[in-house]
């Protein structure tokens, strides 16, 4: 039986999160599916809605976006308008119904959509098993890297925030640390299949954005014209003459892309290699737009 708690402060939430089987409940859009498909079975749900982690506020020359801010608020908030990559990514993610529920923190920490990982009939390597069924099965939507797991990361926000120079504020009872956005992610290893670098008891409380780039954009390809996870997406930003590019859908985690050699380190697998051309095209189009 799962119990529910709605702490009134972040510290109270952090205390609760130290309990065995505790899980963070923000929008719950990913967590509900994990529970229903038997991927997660938390004993305690720690609901963040009363912890004051929502909201977007000026922060020096940049902004601070609370982890519990909904994707809909990110998409619509005027303060975020100078970060076009971020607002576009939020606007194109999921559906209006899910954007009204899903949060920034949840979008970053969501699990992969790999159909073997999500499927109730398989216990795959990423889920703690021995076999990556995608590598011996159907991996048309999977990633382009070598590895024990070839699942693709589905976050729209992560690459967009990354190219805008975002950092993630991670808090635990003993203190706070701030890391570059892409450092929130790690590739799974045999002894630790997690995709994030959060330690037990740590919580993403905010994303901080520095002064906006001179220009930024987000391009995505999905399975239909709306309401699908990105197959490949590319975010790009220009600071002066410097170009930064990141992508989703091509690796276990959101990945920085070298604008001069976008396919470096991304050989692809037999059925997923088609994504290379899509990635290359999106990067090329992004750069053309940013340079003009």
């Amino acid at each position: 039986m799962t119990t529910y708690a709605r702490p009134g402060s972040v510290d109270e939430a952090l205390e609760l999160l130290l309990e065995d089987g505790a899980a963070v409940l923000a929008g719950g859009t990913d967590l509900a599916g994990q529970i229903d498909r038997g991927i997660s079975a938390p004993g305690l749900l720690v609901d963040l809605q009363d912890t004051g982690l929502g909201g977007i506020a000026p922060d020096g020359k940049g902004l601070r976006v609370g982890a519990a801010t909904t994707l809909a608020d990110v998409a619509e908030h005027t303060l975020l308008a100078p970060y076009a990559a971020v607002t576009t990514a939020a606007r194109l993610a999921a559906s209006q119904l899910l954007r009204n529920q899903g949060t920034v923190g949840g979008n970053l920490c969501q699990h992969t959509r790999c159909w073997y990982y999500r499927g109730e009939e398989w216990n795959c390597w990423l889920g703690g098993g021995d076999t990556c069924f995608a590598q011996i099965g159907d991996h048309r939507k999977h990633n382009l890297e070598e590895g024990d797991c070839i699942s693709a990361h589905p976050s729209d926000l992560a690459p967009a925030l990354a190219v805008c120079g975002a950092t993630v504020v991670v808090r635990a009872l003993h203190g706070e640390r701030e890391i570059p956005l892409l450092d929130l992610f790690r590739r799974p290893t045999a002894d630790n299949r997690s995709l994030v670098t959060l330690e037990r008891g740590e919580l993403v409380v905010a994303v901080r954005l520095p002064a906006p780039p001179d220009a930024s954009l987000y391009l995505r390809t999905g399975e239909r014209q709306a309401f699908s996870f990105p197959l490949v997406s590319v975010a790009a930003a220009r600071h002066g003459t410097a170009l930064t590019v990141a992508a989703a859908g091509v690796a276990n985690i959101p990945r920085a892309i070298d604008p001069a050699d976008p396919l470096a380190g991304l050989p692809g697998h037999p059925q997923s290699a088609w994504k290379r051309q899509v990635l290359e095209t999106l990067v090329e189009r992004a750069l053309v737009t940013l340079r003009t």
Partner: protein
Amino acid sequence: MEVILEVNGERHSVVPSGRRLLAVLRDDLELLGTKLACGEGACGACAVLVDGRPVNACLLLAEAAVGHQIVTIEGLSVGRAHAVQEAFVAEDALQCGYCTPGQVVSATALLERTPAPTREQIHEAMAGNLCRCGAYPKIERAILRAAGSA
């Protein structure tokens, strides 16, 4: 544990027992207009308004809805919502009708925020409400019609 849910302006005492809002609405409050179709936020048949915003009731923990104003299709019968329903009937923006309550909830929320939506805005706001019968062309027309009549 017993909690109070505010649904369609009325306070209801319910025991969520870890269930989602959709289950409590349908099974405890017998508000049967809100439908279960996919159970994972992939179709919008269970859309309800929470503090005026449409969300998937199949994903929302009932306990997380405590303290919020919940409005279901049964609570949408006046004003703009009524105009939306009339437009859906007039334009034949429904076939089997199973997804229709969710469509009406999303359309009403859209028009509250964006009284004169463009085609693109309609698509952005409504793409989470699947209609397997394919009433989409007429849903779009019904929303435009309701917008014009408001």
